[in-house]
């Protein structure tokens, strides 16, 4: 970068009023680079889908990635590329035809449906997951193991600022929010505030993927955040939600039975009904082979409940 700046400076120092010309042939290389371009355009119009592009929610991505690995072992000649980015990104990509499957950990919003009317988005549930209110393990072990909905709402709207008010240590709360389009956030905010787009005025940090959120919570000793239940571990604990005197932890059992209140379906979204290899792949994920993958990823298979 700075070398190029220096070269610029040097360039402007030397004044040379060029005489008649010196010419180097470029036609070959230039046409070569354009030939590339032409072929690229044609190939992306190819009738037969050999590459499946899957983009979206980082919650669903492990299922897709594992399933892709197994599926492409059985079917040679197909390649499945999985990318994260978030539910909003996945829906946008499939709506614009930039991916064959969009991953979402929330439902498609009305606004998105309206925008991608022509794409005729169809969703296929592949599993079920709970969204945990996650805290740093230090807080969990210091005694904050359950919260009511109102308490969480107060934390996120900035009314409660210290763990002391919740029976924990005298430490300020590090409130971690997520990017607005993330599926986990939609589901969580819908539970806490009854509005998927609710503002979190008490937030101190905004993160993106599940990985990022989990890192931030575990690096801190006083954080609270929203996290897919499958991402919980020794450093990041899911808090039980207290409703009508009963507390329900985000355990696999409670999510499976539907007792845990914040659950959502994990979706594969396609434009129109899937056909051919796309259908085969989705059937595979929803079938027996997919079940074990969903379980292995820490989620609840959809047909078992």
């Amino acid at each position: 970068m700075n070398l190029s700046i220096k070269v610029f400076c040097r360039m402007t120092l030397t004044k040379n009023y060029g005489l008649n010309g010196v010419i180097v042939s470029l036609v070959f290389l230039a046409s070569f680079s354009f030939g590339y371009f032409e072929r690229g355009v044609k190939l992306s119009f190819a009738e037969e889908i050999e590459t499946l592009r899957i983009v979206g929610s980082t919650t669903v991505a492990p299922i897709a990635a594992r399933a892709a690995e197994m599926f492409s072992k059985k079917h040679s000649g197909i390649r499945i590329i999985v990318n994260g980015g978030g539910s909003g990104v996945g829906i946008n990509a499939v709506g614009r035809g930039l991916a064959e499957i969009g991953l979402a950990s929330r439902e498609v919003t009305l606004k998105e449906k309206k925008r991608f009317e022509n794409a005729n988005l169809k969703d296929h549930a592949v599993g079920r997951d709970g969204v945990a209110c996650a805290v740093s393990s230090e807080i969990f072990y210091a005694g904050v193991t359950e919260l009511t909905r109102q308490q969480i709402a107060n934390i996120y709207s900035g009314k409660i600022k210290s763990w002391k008010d919740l029976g924990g240590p005298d430490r300020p709360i590090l409130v971690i929010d997520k990017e607005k389009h993330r599926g986990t956030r939609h589901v969580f905010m819908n539970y806490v505030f009854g509005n998927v787009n609710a503002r979190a005025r008490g937030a101190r940090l905004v993160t993106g993927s599940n990985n990022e959120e989990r890192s931030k919570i575990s690096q801190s000793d006083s954080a609270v955040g929203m996290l897919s239940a499958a991402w919980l571990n020794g450093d990041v604990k899911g808090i039980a939600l207290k409703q009508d005197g009963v507390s329900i932890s985000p355990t696999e059992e409670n999510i499976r039975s539907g007792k845990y209140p914040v659950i959502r379906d994990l979706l594969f979204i396609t434009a129109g009904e899937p056909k051919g290899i796309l259908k085969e792949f989705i059937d595979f994920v929803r079938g027996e082979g997919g079940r074990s993958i969903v379980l292995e990823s820490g989620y609840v298979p959809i047909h078992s409940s």
Partner: protein
Amino acid sequence: MFPFIVPDRRRNADPLFWSTVFSAGLVLATAVIFSSYLFWESLPVWDQGLWAFLTSVEWDPGEDVYGAGAMIYGSLIVTSLALLFALPFALCGAITASEFLSPRARLVFKGAMETMAGAPGVVYGLLGAAMLSLWVKDFFGLIDGSTLFTAGILLGIMILPTIMTLAEDAIHSVPGEYRDTALSLGLTPLQAFFKAVAPRALPGIIGAVLLGLGRALGETIAVMLVIGGLDIIPMGLDLFSPGQNIPSKLGREAAEAIGSGMHWNALIALGAILFTGTMMLTAAGSWLLRRRAV
């Protein structure tokens, strides 16, 4: 027809001439299309009121409410912090290398700095996310290390070699006679530098700083990982609050909004602001750097 082109009839029959014209045209078209796209796509946002967009802090794609205030504030703060942090090191390094190092040591020094200046932003981002933000958190006793301060320091480290070697060039290009004259008048080497060399190198040094700032303003990845991502203007001048700057906002939200709707227009409008900012900095910087040669 084109009086600025060298007159030579043979050129019209020469395909090589036309291929160079084609290349130059392509470069020109790229620049024109790119900048007009930025401003064209951000028009819908300007229509809603330029001043409101620049100053409002509300950014809510769900409600189609957009204000760039927090991002602009964050960009300004982070860039100034980076400058304040990098400047003393860069200037002292430049003075030392140019005035007091042997030619051979200077060459090694310069080579090292120019190489470091090319280090990818994502490597700095990793350093920031995995180390610097944790240090900042522990050292200042914060609840989290993702702050405007962290981002500023990280950017400062990042632009340090760029500013250092450009400033060194500016100082080194001052002719030796100035130093000799000053020394023969009985001044110490340092006095000679400050009295005779520095005033002449000053425009070049400022140019170097502006170019470094241009780079800091546009850096995305390193900032994105450590700034906190919160669209607020903190109360007072709280550097240890999380914030947001323009490139980081673009990096986090662009993929979701790509191609359509007001959200995209608002992001492109942010881009246009950023573009204008870096362009002014680099234009001023390069003008100053060039001036020293005359």
